[in-house]
Structure formats: C-alpha cells, structure tokens
C-alpha cells in the first residue's frame, strides 16, 4: 500500500501524510472540509491546516488504498497543501484545496489566461475561443479552462502543441469519464496529455461531476490564471462564477462582445456592463496579462501562408467570414460558380490544411 502512495505523492510530498489525509477524506469528507475551512479562516497556512486535519483521529480507513491505486494507475501525482508541488498561486489567493491531483506539467512559470464560456457555444464563440487560445499559445501564455465541451474545448484544442500549453481543471475525479466525448481514448484529455498539458482535479478519483464540485473548481481556474476571459455564456452561466472569483481575487476579467440578440451573449455583456474589459481580439487579452502579441505569429509570411493557396473567389468570402465558419451552401451560391468546381476547390484547401470543414461550414485554419 505504501508503494502506491509513494508513486502517487508529488515531489516534496510525504506519502504517509498524504495517505492519512486521503484516508480521512474517504472516511469523513464533511468533517475534513469543515475542519479545513475553519483552519483556513483562522489564517492557518496550507501545511498548518493539513496538520490540523491530521490531528483528528481516523477511525476507519477503508478505501484509501483503492484511491491510491486508482491514482497510480492513471499516472496521477498528488500534492498536499503547503508542499512545494502545490501551485503557490493557490496558496497566495487563499483558495488552496487540501490536496491537488494532477497529470502533466502545470507550467506555473508562465503567465496564464483562463478562456471560459458556455457548453452550448455558437460557431462564433468557438471561433473566438480558438483564435484567442491560438494567439495566447503562440505567445507562450498558458490556457486554463474547465475541460467542458463548447468554449472550453475550443480553447484547449487550439492551444495544444503551442508553446504556452494548456491546463484542464476537472470538475470530477480523474477516474470519471466526464465529459464523455473528451474522456474517451484519443479524446481531448488524451491529446492534452500527449501534448504535455496538465489535467488537474481537487477531487478523489471516483468523485462524479456534481454541480457544487463543478462550481467549486471554477475558483481554481480563476486563481491559476492572470486574466479571465468569458467568451460566451447564458444568463446563469458557470463562467460568471469563474469571473466573480477572479474579481474577488483581483484578477482582470474580460468579456468578448457578442451578437446582442443571441442568448449566449448574456454573460459577457453582463460582465462588460459591470466594468469588465472588452476583449476584441488576442491583443486585448495579452495586454491584460502584460504580454504583447508574439511577433513571430503575426509576420506577413504567416498571413500569406494562411490563404495563399486559395483562389481569390474562395479566399475573399472566407476572410470576410473569419473567424466564423462559412456554410458550404452559402459559399457555393455566393461564388456564382458550378457547385462541383467550388467543392473540388474546398477539398484541395482542406487537404492542404488551409481550411477546416465541419457541421457549421468552412473556416480558415489560421487568422488571415
């Protein structure tokens, strides 16, 4: 059993202390959380609060070994509050959990932005999220988000394999396949892992995604970032919780203006009304974290690379629509050319990696 705990303990974490904290959590989750809050409110530091938690006797410790084995099997490391592996930002912002389970490298040496928004995203929203994440990633800025479908996924996806990297903050345990499309083999989480990104969680491996847990992880997203941008969200979007945590912690909040008629614009517009900064492009976002746009990503060469392979009649409407996708039928009807010719050109561009095509239509892969 102790072998498992040794494998799981992150650098600088005592396996035995970790084993006892988790055993306590398994036996009496509420007691632990209440004790934790009391200690933190009393101004105790992370490691002192861990000491307080451990001073209470653990009568039953069934299941703690299974937890360790489950973490070890998934290649997860766990850090206790106050240990060197625990991100110092969490301690500084006073939102540190008793323990943090993680895979991959958190990249805490970099600046980070949180790109958050609703799960039911429009093509405009995912397009904006992807644009912001691409630029941030190229500028060496970490993209943090909640790993949900929609805006979160677009942000993670676009920042994969870019210098900044990405961090997924799960609202459930590492052992729970949620959201399902991302947790499957070869899904988003696998790709994040393969590209060196991090997947972190403050839950036990088998904790399912519950509303309180998902809301509570939003404070970690806010605290891990130097700026929070809300791309799209409804009136009661969870991204507003992230934004209000960020405001409480003194972290800049930005909102991406949207279509005023769309319900998905309610959250960012609400924030803008309350004094959030306008995010009208990557420059606004990167300025908020004190980093300019990566000049290498905006050279003329790059701009040419994006669209040079396209015939003019195809390039013009796609550039106009960008970052929104252009429905295929609209493209055909607008081009005045034979449908077959247009489709053949789209295929060539798609195979050449210049455009992507999905349910929403055709979109340029890179900013024109």
């Amino acid at each position: 059993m102790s072998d498992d705990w040794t494998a799981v303990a992150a650098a600088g974490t005592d396996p035995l202390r970790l084993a006892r904290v988790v055993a306590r959590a398994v036996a009496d989750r509420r007691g632990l959380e209440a004790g934790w809050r009391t200690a933190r409110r009393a101004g105790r530091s992370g490691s002192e609060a861990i000491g307080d938690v451990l001073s209470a006797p653990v009568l039953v410790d069934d299941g703690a070994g299974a937890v360790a084995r489950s973490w070890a099997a998934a290649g997860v490391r766990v850090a206790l509050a106050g240990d060197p592996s625990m991100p110092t930002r969490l301690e500084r912002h006073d939102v540190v959990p008793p323990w943090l389970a993680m895979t991959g490298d958190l990249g805490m040496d970099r600046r980070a932005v949180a790109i958050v928004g609703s799960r039911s995203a429009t093509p405009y929203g995912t397009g904006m999220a992807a644009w912001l994440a691409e630029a941030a990633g190229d500028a060496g800025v970490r993209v943090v988000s909640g790993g949900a479908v929609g805006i979160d996924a677009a942000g993670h996806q676009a920042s994969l394999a870019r210098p900044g990297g990405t961090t997924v903050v799960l609202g459930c345990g590492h052992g729970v396949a949620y959201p399902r499309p991302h947790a499957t083999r070869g899904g988003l989480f696998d790709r994040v892992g393969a590209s060196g990104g991090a997947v972190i969680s403050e839950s036990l491996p088998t904790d399912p995604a519950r509303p309180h847990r998902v809301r509570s992880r939003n404070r970690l997203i806010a605290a891990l970032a130097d700026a929070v941008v809300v791309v799209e969200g409804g009136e009661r979007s969870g991204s507003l919780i992230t934004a209000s945590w960020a405001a409480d912690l003194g972290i800049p909040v930005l909102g991406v203006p949207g279509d005023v008629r769309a319900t998905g614009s309610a959250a960012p517009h609400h924030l803008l009304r309350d004094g959030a900064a306008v995010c009208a492009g990557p420059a606004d976002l990167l300025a908020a974290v004190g980093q300019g746009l990566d000049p290498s990503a905006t050279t003329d060469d790059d701009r040419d690379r994006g669209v040079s392979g396209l015939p003019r009649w195809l390039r013009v409407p796609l550039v106009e629509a960008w970052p929104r996708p252009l429905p295929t039928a609209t493209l055909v009807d607008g081009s005045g050319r034979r449908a077959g010719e247009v489709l053949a050109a789209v295929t060539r561009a798609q195979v050449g990696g210049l455009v992507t095509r999905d349910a929403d239509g055709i979109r340029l892969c890179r900013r024109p």
Partner: protein
Amino acid sequence: MTPVDEADLTVADLQVVVSDGTGADGASDDGRAPAASGSARRARGPLARAGAVALTGLSGDLVHAEAAIAAGLPQIRIVGLPDAAVRESADRVRLGCQRSGFSLPETKVVVNLAPAGIRKSGPGFDLPVALAVLAAAGHLAPADLDGVVAMGEVGLDGHLRGAAGTLPAATTARRVGAGRMVVPIDVAGEAALVEGLDVVPVGSLRDAVAVLAGTIACPARPRPPEPVQRDVDDLVDVRGQALARRGIEIAAAGGHHVLMMGPPGCGKSMLARRLPGILPGLTPAEALEVAAVRSIVGVVATDLDLRPPFRAPHHATSTAGLIGGGSGVARPGELSRAHRGVLFLDEVLETPRSTLDALREPLERGEVVLVRSQSRVTYPARVQLVVAANPCPCGHAGSSSRPCRCRPDQVARYRGRLSGPLLDRIDLHLELEPVSEDVLVGPSDGESSAAVAARVRQARDVAASRWAAADVPGDRRLNRDVDPARLRQTVSATAQRRLARAVQALGWSARTFDRCLRVARTIADLAASDVAGADHVDEAIAYRLDTGPRST
C-alpha cells in the same frame, strides 16, 4: 370484352346449358344426371378440375381445384391446406352459384386443392372452386375446363371481383403453359399485361360458365393498360440550392444512396420528391416488376407507370412495414413498393436504429428475403435510398439566421444515431442551407427536370455500356453496385493517390476510399470523361459529411 347482358340470359337459357352439360356427362358416367335431386347413390358424379394459382410472394404454383360429389349433408367442403379466406370460399361459392341460377346437388361436394402440400390463401380461389363445383354438378362439361386457370373472388350474387396478385398469377399461368386464364373484368387489363396468355374477362359466374361452355362468344382479349408517365414535380420549382441540385443529379446518374442534412423547411423532401423526375424512365419489363408488387398488395394496375416509384413512409413505420412482414406469408413492405424507384426516409434520426439496420442487407442484395414459419418469400428491393435529417436536435445548427440551441455533445450524440453500417452504404452526403428571402421571391433560377434528366440519361448510358464491356452482370451496372476492383480500373492512378492522401489527411476510414471513388466515377460520367481524374475525385470528397462532433 363482351360482358354478357344479363337481360339476355334467362333462367331458361341456363336450363338448356345445364341439360346439355348433363347429357354430355351422363353418357360417359353411367347415364346418371348429377344435377338432379340428390341421393347418396349419386355420389359418383364426374370429377371436375379447374386450374388455379397459389401465390407465395411473387412466385406462384399451379394448383388444381378438384371437385367431386360425395355422400353427406349438403355442403361444399374444401380440403388441401386452405387458409381461413379459402375455407370461407365454400359459402361464397354455394350462394354465388345458387343466386346465379345454378342448382347444386343436395349432397356434399368435396373440393380438393391439389397438390395439398402447398398453402393456399386469399379469396382468389373462389372462381376456380366455383367452376369445378359447377362442372361436378353438371352445369359445365369437365372438358371445358381443360387448360383453364381461373382467379377471382365470387360475390354472393355471383358477381366476380378481382383478387390481389392477379398479375403475378397471370405470369405463373403463362409459365406453366395454361391456355386460358379466366379473370374478373376489373383486373383483366392487369392480367393482359402478360403477353402470350389468352385472358378471358368475365363479369359474373354466369358469364364465366357461358363463355367456357361456348354458349356465348368469347369476349375479346382485354387491352393491357397503356404505358404512361406519372406527373411528378419539376426541379424548376426549387429555388437556390445549387449544391443540393448538383448532388441530386450525381445521385440520379450513379444510383447512389443520398443523405440530406439541413434545417427544417430548407427543401429536403422537396428535392427528394423530384428525384423520380430526373431518373431514367422504367423499361416495360421493369414497370411490370413494379406493377407485380403493387398487385400483391392489392393495387390494380389501371395504367403501366414508367416513372420510377417514390415511397416516403413515415418515420414511425415499423420494421415489418418497411421491409415487409406478417405471419404466414410475408407481405411486401415499403422497401419493395419502392423497387426500381426511390425510398425516401424523412427524419431518419427519429427512426429506430434496429429498423434502419434491417435495410442494410436488402439494399446490398437488391432483394429482401422474408422467412416465416410456413413460407420463404423473396421480394425485389432495388431501391435508391434517400434519407433526410436535421443537423441537430433543434434543427438550426449551421444556420446563419437562427442560433442553434444544442450543446455540441448533444449534436454529436444525435448524429451518432446515423453512423454505422447504414451510413456506410450512403455514398453521397448533402448539406442544405435554408434559402434566403431574396432567392425565394426572385425569379426561378434552376434548370428543369427535363434538362437534368437528359444529362442523367447520358451518364447512365455511358456507365452502362462501359460496365457491359467489362462483363458486369446486367442488374449491377450502376456505379453504386459495381465492385470496387472494377471501379478502380477506370480511375486514373494520380486521382487515386490524391484520394488516398486526402482520406488520410482528413482522418477518414479506408472504406470511405471506395465510396469516394464511386462518386468520382459518376461525376466523370456526367462530364463524359473516360477516366475519372483529380477534379472529379476532389469534388467527390466534398460530398462526405463529418458526422462527428464539431472539429473546432
């Protein structure tokens, strides 16, 4: 046709007929008159035999209704594996004969449907049973029934009605070499579709007896229904939708199955309904196949429609309703009704997966085999499948005018219902956009069905002659059906390499490769190009939808 005027045929005439018949029979049968009042000793009357057809699906067997007078209480007893409808025939025949003025012996008449091992069903046996009984009773000479096959339902007043399946029965009659087929007037035209068969249309039991006995002239052979082209909607009514029009044209030219995806009201079913109008017309032989299936389900062929049929069953149709089913002998479903034509499944994602999966094998084989405890029937099922679906549960994904309210995972799950083996058989995927206002009110901008049909016809001819030269069997000469190895020989190596690269770059399965080749081949046929080239392949690739989640 010379329907007998009933006023001309009095009971007295009938008596003459009867006595004539009796005399002829009596001489050869101990001099007894079977039609005279009954007694047990008269049980040994002549054995009369009339031909009938027992249908099992579209194929039939010749059976004989053998009637003989037996000792017993007055009744007609039918033996030889009859079903409920055939057993009821006894009462119809008895009353029908009596009300037509024929007296039946006051004793038992046994009718055996031989061979007794074949199951007989339906009311079509009434007429042969009645003719055999009447001959046994002496109203008709048994020799008059030689080489005669009859089919039809007898009413209680002796009038005749057509029974379902007259056309396949007539085909069977000709195959087994029957000389004459006696059928009710209302289905005579249908039977006359079968060439080389002497069709005798009769209106009532009295007519039938009179014609067979030769007392009135045999009515002229009825005219078979005229070949006609059913009116279908014209493609010129469709506004905008250049992409979908092109897709439909390719589908028609290659016989490819089509998936149309688009928001409600964008014209999916409008386009599908116009597909029969651009498909090549049926040959008379093909139209006969269609009419035969219709005949089985009881639709009398009043004309011979050369347009490919169009069937659009509701999405709640059961599996049996779609592919055919029922106990005893399975009946054809919508799939077989659409044989040689178009089967359109709207809202296909609302149809249960198991129902859709049942279509797979029939689509592949071009026929559907339905096995029940008592029968195994094969119905034709060479259809072009057109399925339509909304792009997401709310229907507005990809729309620029109305926002989609579905989460991407909902969309993925919704579309996932279509993935799988059935989707693998659909070569062509079309995305449809809602038509904008100015296109709707603007002038008509598209070609007419006739112009498109001419190109389709040409492309099909090109393909058919190519595959004929390559020794492809006659019924597999659509690009949809040709086997992949042959197909590859007609696509340039460059284009194939290009396709392989694209399939890899887009992360598609290897199976997609052959489907893209098929479509590319058809596009090349439309362009009258011998070898499919890179442009054709590039266009073909674009007719594949990513049915997975948004790739963001």
